[in-house]
């Protein structure tokens, strides 16, 4: 085992397995899943490891059942997770909405593949809108983390569970087939002792004659009551938007051309930014780590220097809408993307940066 500067052990792990191991270390002892490429190693890791830590791995009959098992385990107070890939996440939409409506915490991992429909099994980022806009029916949002390295996949798992418990909301980790399948050296998070996790006095654990009965529910037939609950939930969302925005900036201080990319495509964009700098172009990168809340503040700060924005995604153009909302017409916002599982190359991105720089200089 190699050691990093802090003397911590580094291990070489596949992204999917790193997500699973980190979840166990975050105190997750219940996992409900269903096989789907390219996330299957995650479920297989859970099947292997959960019995060894006194946890439960259960292969559900469907994604629909799996997310409703997450709903039940969360209602019962457990730290619980499920994972899938794009078509399976669509099936989980029902349960995610019910979790939001019943204020239940839980972590959902989407190792994205190309769509729509059965699509393909190659990496994609085409579920951005689904994750940030409409994971299910009704007025709700969920926190969405978009790691771009296997190390960051490890790190955001703990944050995802903690944020889910703190805000009583489902939280998604939006990865993709590239991150899920790649191997990188990682320092795994320190294990949580599951007995030290936050108390959940609202959970349905049996009242034992000690309190009134707890009810976990999302049904409110009185319109005024339901509206009030929505308003309260959006007050919580405002706190999340204020406190949980997260992004990485790279060479943006003096950037004329600001590239915005998340997850796997941010790795490619970063290479292109480096190449642009070598060519004398002042390029920089904003990498949202939370997709919701979108890191408006970090992006806003770049508008003082940016002459143009280039949004790079592995889809037909989704996050670009959020960038346009922040930039609000103060600079042109261009999009470059590849879809269906095709991964853009640094050379393709560099070409767009050069073209934008030439236009901005005119």
């Amino acid at each position, binding site marked *: 085992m190699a050691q990093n500067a802090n003397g911590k052990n580094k291990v070489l792990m596949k992204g999917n397995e790193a997500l699973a191991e980190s979840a166990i270390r975050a105190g997750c002892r*219940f996992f*409900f899943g269903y096989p789907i490429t390219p996330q299957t190693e995650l479920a297989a890791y859970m099947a292997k490891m959960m019995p060894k830590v006194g946890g*439960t791995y*259960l292969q*559900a*009959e*469907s994604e*629909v*059942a*799996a997310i*409703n*098992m*997450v*709903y*039940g*385990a969360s*209602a*019962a*107070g*457990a730290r*619980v997770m499920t994972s899938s890939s794009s078509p399976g996440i669509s099936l989980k939409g*029902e*349960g995610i909405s*019910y979790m939001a409506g*019943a204020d239940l915490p839980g972590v959902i991992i989407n190792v994205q593949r190309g769509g729509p429909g059965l699509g393909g099994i190659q990496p994609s980022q085409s579920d951005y809108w689904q994750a940030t806009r409409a994971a299910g029916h009704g007025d709700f949002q969920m926190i969405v983390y978009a790691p771009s390295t296997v190390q960051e996949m490890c790190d955001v798992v703990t944050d995802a569970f903690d944020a889910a418990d703190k805000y009583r909301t489902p939280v998604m980790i939006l990865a993709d087939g590239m991150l899920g399948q790649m191997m990188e050296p990682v320092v795994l998070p320190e294990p949580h002792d599951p007995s030290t996790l936050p108390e959940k006095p609202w959970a*349905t*654990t*049996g*009242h*034992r*004659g*000690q309190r009134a*009965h*707890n*009810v*976990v*529910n*999302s*049904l409110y037939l009185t319109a005024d009551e339901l509206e009030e609950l929505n308003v309260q939930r959006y007050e919580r969302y405002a706190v999340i938007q204020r406190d949980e925005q997260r992004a990485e900036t790279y060479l943006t201080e003096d950037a004329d051309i600001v590239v915005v990319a998340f997850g796997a495509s941010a790795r490619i964009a970063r290479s292109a930014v480096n190449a642009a700098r070598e060519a004398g172009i002042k390029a920089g990168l904003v990498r949202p780590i939370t997709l919701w809340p979108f890191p408006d503040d970090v992006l806003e700060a770049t508008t003082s220097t940016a002459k143009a924005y280039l949004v790079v995604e592995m889809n037909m153009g989704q996050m670009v809408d959020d960038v346009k909302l922040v930039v609000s017409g103060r600079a042109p916002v261009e999009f470059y993307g590849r879809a269906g599982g095709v991964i853009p190359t640094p050379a393709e991105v560099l070409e767009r940066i050069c073209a934008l720089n030439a236009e901005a200089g005119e």
Partner: protein
Amino acid sequence: MSSVTEKETNVVFERPHALLPVVTNYCPGCAHGIVHRLVAETLDELDIEGRTVGVAPVGCSVMAYDFFGCDMIEAAHGRAPAVATAVKRVHPDNVVFAYQGDGDLASIGMAETVHAATRGENITIIFINNAIYGMTGGQMAPTSLPNQVTQTSPYGRDVSSAGHPVRVSELLATLDGPAYIERVTVDSPKNVRKAKKAIKRAFQNQVDGVGYSFVEVVSTCPTNWGMTPQDSFEWMRENMLPYYPLGVYKDVVADGFANAAEAASARNAACPIAHPETQGEEAR
């Protein structure tokens, strides 16, 4: 004038503790109230209310969480068995039951129903079969009878197009997972007592670790059938009971086994991989 004093009062009948003192949303003559009471009496008699978690369905009994005094979860339509599965896995010492109607259990939730049963989850399912969707106003259910007129089978259920009603108890009895399956009804004091016995048994089985226990209650829907409560029971006896015969469909204890797992093991005794104990070292 009444001359009864408190001293002379002898309580012979009262609301079960596990049934909250609230007005339900059930129609006059609906059997849900009877079955709720039987479940609540059971929770009282087994002294398990404090460690019981109930799962309510979508349908007329969607608001059962307001009626039972134990902790309650409202599940998405048809998903109660998946929710109950997880609650039981998180807290194996809790008693977990799902209370579901025919649309919830046998149509949209059939996959969850069958798989919770075949996994042999140690939970209790109470299934109200009244051959119609009540809450949405009387549409055809998976258990609606051939030629039964409903809002969505206005010319009567045409089995050549809409298919045949599902006999859920018989279907689940083919699986290895369940320990106990019985179909009852509540149309008479005698049958209410039988239903109570079955429901109590279904909870006692869970407490004793015997396994998945399922009670189907053939029931009525006077409102959506367009009949008086009395006529409803008469129609139910005439038409539903021949299609859905009352009785015990599976009972592993009566068959001489301690639990569902033992019964399943005996049934698949000829399958080598299921029985490594009968194989030589090499086969392992």
